[in-house]
């Protein structure tokens, strides 16, 4: 461990918090229809889009209408993306946009990929630079990077409207929320972010792959592409699907320590801002601060453990005789699967950030993390995306936990639970409980299926022996059910031999099971969340009395952390014991 490593972590948190408070204020204005700085520029395009889409933006929708629009829009996106990816080398695709003439991935891989991008998961059973044409990356994958992020955010906004609603049924208008999210929130940051990235060395071109002749007489082919535009929205929308196979470890996606820092900010800025937005929209900023404190405590714990564990080095390194302490001119630690320019701290911080959120981008190989270091991404996923979480998904997931915590707190003191002046009754608690359980259910059920069947075990890599093989499997379904998308990347199965490209991985079983898990664990909780919002929206507000449990103080933060750990993490504890914990505690080689 180094001083500069800890300094990176501290500075990151300070800068993030400052930016998120400002963005939270801005977003609260956007979603309440107040005038913001961009209004003069964007009001025109906004009106134009409503006209083209034939929507009446002011017409409120109850939760069912809101959900119906959302589901139909997502389904349409799914079908169009499937069509685009399956016609990758059709006659009308210009050669320059598919310079290597890649054929489409087979139907099973495509099913997985499409489900993955529409659900904001971005799990990849393919390698970008050996499977996808430039056109597919642009009009297919990049577009869903935007849209799936937008869908996530609007659900959180709708839930907040339900919470603060004053005896109405409307949660707002889905189309208006979506258009505003894209125009006012995602677009300015994404364009600015992409330009910053390209100025630092993220590539942006349509040239053919380069052929270099090295000074020692070898040839090297170098993949190219329009990366910067996709990279920015990939991080900002907590999508995480890399343009290249190695994602943000690739020097063309993440060339310097500065871009690494910048990309980490892009990932967390919206999830963090949404928390402050929630505080502002409820009219009590302390509500937002309490949630921010809750997730920040858990986040910092995770970062610290990951950094310390990775700086210590791995059993395999030590068995080979390697010394892993800091020496002059080298940061030491478990540098297997990590880039020199990021070092241990930059890698541990990045991968913790992208696994607490639903981003799932990686700048280092999670599979090569030490047992305990690797247990951190595991626990982050086990907490079901509430520690900041994905854009939107994080806020609505933790608000379901808040509901549960208020309920449990109410039972403890023996009073009718109240939240922001609204009485919580059986219906909301049932819906929230179900919403919380969908993800663990999908993850554990799929892991059991995959480890117990031949077809499932076919995906485990050659190197994945003993607990590592189990870890790979559990991680795969944990990641897909949380719509995260990061991977113990050995879990791919074989390269499909007749695909017409050389990057389509995965066996049919894993492709389909994974795809279904992603869809189920994305849209299940969304529907339940909107139902909760609908149930809350109609309730009348009663002023807080002396006996009302406060949800904006330290006691509640402790209670909330307790509930999250109890419900979220302990569900997975037995499974975690079999994989990362065994590896972390024994130091045994397999």
């Amino acid at each position, binding site marked *: 461990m180094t001083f500069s490593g800890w300094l990176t972590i501290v500075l990151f948190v300070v800068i993030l918090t400052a930016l998120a408070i400002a963005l939270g204020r801005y977003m609260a204005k956007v979603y309440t229809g107040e005038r913001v700085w961009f209004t003069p520029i964007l009001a025109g395009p906004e009106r134009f889009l409503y006209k083209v889409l034939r929507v009446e933006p002011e017409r409120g929708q109850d939760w069912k209408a809101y959900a119906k629009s959302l589901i139909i829009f997502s*389904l349409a996106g799914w079908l169009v993306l499937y069509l685009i990816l399956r016609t990758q080398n059709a006659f009308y695709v210009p050669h320059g946009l598919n310079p290597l003439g890649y054929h489409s991935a087979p139907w099973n891989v495509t099913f997985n990929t499409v489900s993955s991008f529409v659900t904001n998961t971005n799990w990849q059973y393919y390698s970008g630079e050996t499977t996808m044409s430039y056109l597919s990356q642009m009009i297919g994958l990049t577009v869903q990077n935007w849209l799936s992020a937008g869908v996530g955010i609007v659900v959180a906004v709708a839930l907040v409207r339900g919470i603060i609603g004053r005896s109405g049924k409307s949660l707002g208008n889905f189309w208006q929320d979506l258009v505003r999210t894209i125009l006012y929130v995602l677009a300015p940051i994404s364009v600015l972010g992409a330009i910053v990235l390209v100025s630092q060395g993220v590539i942006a071109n349509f040239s053919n792959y380069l052929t270099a002749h090295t000074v020692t007489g070898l040839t090297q082919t170098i993949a190219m592409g329009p990366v910067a535009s996709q990279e920015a929205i990939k991080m900002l929308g907590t999508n995480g699907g890399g343009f290249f196979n190695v994602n943000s470890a690739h020097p063309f996606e993440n060339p310097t320590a500065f871009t690494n820092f910048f990309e980490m900010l892009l990932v967390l800025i919206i999830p963090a801002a949404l928390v402050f937005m929630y505080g502002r929209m409820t009219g009590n900023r302390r509500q937002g601060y309490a949630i921010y404190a809750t997730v920040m405590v858990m986040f910092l714990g995770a970062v610290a453990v990951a950094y310390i564990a990775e700086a210590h080095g791995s059993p395999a390194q030590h*068995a080979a005789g390697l010394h892993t302490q800091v020496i002059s001119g080298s940061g030491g630690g478990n540098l297997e699967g990590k880039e020199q320019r990021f070092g241990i701290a930059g890698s541990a911080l990045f991968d913790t950030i992208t696994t607490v959120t639903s981003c799932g981008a990686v700048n280092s190989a999670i599979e090569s993390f030490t047992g305990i270091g690797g247990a951190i991404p595991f626990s982050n996923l086990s907490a079901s995306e509430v520690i900041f979480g994905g854009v939107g998904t994080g806020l609505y997931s933790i608000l379901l936990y808040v509901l549960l915590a208020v309920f449990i707190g109410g039972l403890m003191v023996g009073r009718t639970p109240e939240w922001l002046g609204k009485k919580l009754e059986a219906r909301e608690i049932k819906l929230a409980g179900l919403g919380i359980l969908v993800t663990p259910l999908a993850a554990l059920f799929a892991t059991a299926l995959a480890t117990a069947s031949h077809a499932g075990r076919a995906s485990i890599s050659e190197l994945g*022996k003993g607990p590592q093989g189990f870890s790979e499997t559990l991680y795969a379904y944990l990641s897909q059910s949380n719509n995260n998308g990061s991977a113990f990347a050995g879990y791919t199965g074989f390269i499909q031999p007749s695909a017409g490209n050389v990057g389509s991985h995965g066996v049919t079983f894993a492709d389909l099971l994974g795809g279904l898990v992603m869809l189920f664990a994305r849209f299940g909780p969304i529907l339940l969340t909107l139902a909760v919002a609908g149930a809350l929206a109609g309730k009348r507000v009663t002023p807080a009395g002396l006996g009302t449990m406060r949800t904006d103080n330290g006691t509640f933060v402790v209670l909330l952390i307790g509930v999250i750990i109890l419900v979220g993490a302990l569900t997975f504890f037995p499974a975690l014991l079999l994989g990362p914990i065994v590896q972390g505690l024994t130091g045994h080689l397999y």
Partner: protein
Amino acid sequence: MRRDIVTSVIGIVVLTVLLGLVYPLFITGVGQVAFPGNANGQKVYVGGKLVGSKIIGQSFSVPVLDRNGKPKEAEGELVTEPDPRYFQSRPSATEGGSYNAAASTFSNRGPNDRATEEADAENIKAYLELNKPYDPALTVAHIPVDAVNTSGSNLDPEISSANARIQAHRIAAKRKLSLSVVDGLVSNYTDARGLGFSGEPGVNVLELNLALDRLAGGVR
């Protein structure tokens, strides 16, 4: 229902044009105009010939020749050995030979795998064989981790300065330069941490090697 379907379909089409065509073309255009070097991958030319990208790592090995003077192949891959006159990059385990920048991949070596230990031990042995003759005090305890472990992308363009300083002994002997000259070059090409605090300082191997060649008066 019908209304939602119509709006969804129009929405997907319009947004695909905006976000899938206008946005990437705009960003690529800005990149090409304002930062053409970076947007095109920081290509490095020597004598008009493309020798690589500054930020994509490459192998400084030479093909091993068989008895007939032809490059040897094993399992479809070129057999190579490190060129001792150049600083060597980190080990790379991409498919189809090391530093294959057309198909990046993680090594996925687990922390508790015997295979990882074996790979590490092999890399330690190779490193000692290459460098110990020129730096007799070198033992495994001095070898920095980056010289043994593969990187995330397997395309890491940098090595640690500790690694470069060990290799400097060999370079100095092979190129008949004084050690202080080579060390000075290493210092010149050691990048600081990003923003002064983040990441690790490193040495760009391609830049360092090209500087060595220039020192010796052009490509050999």
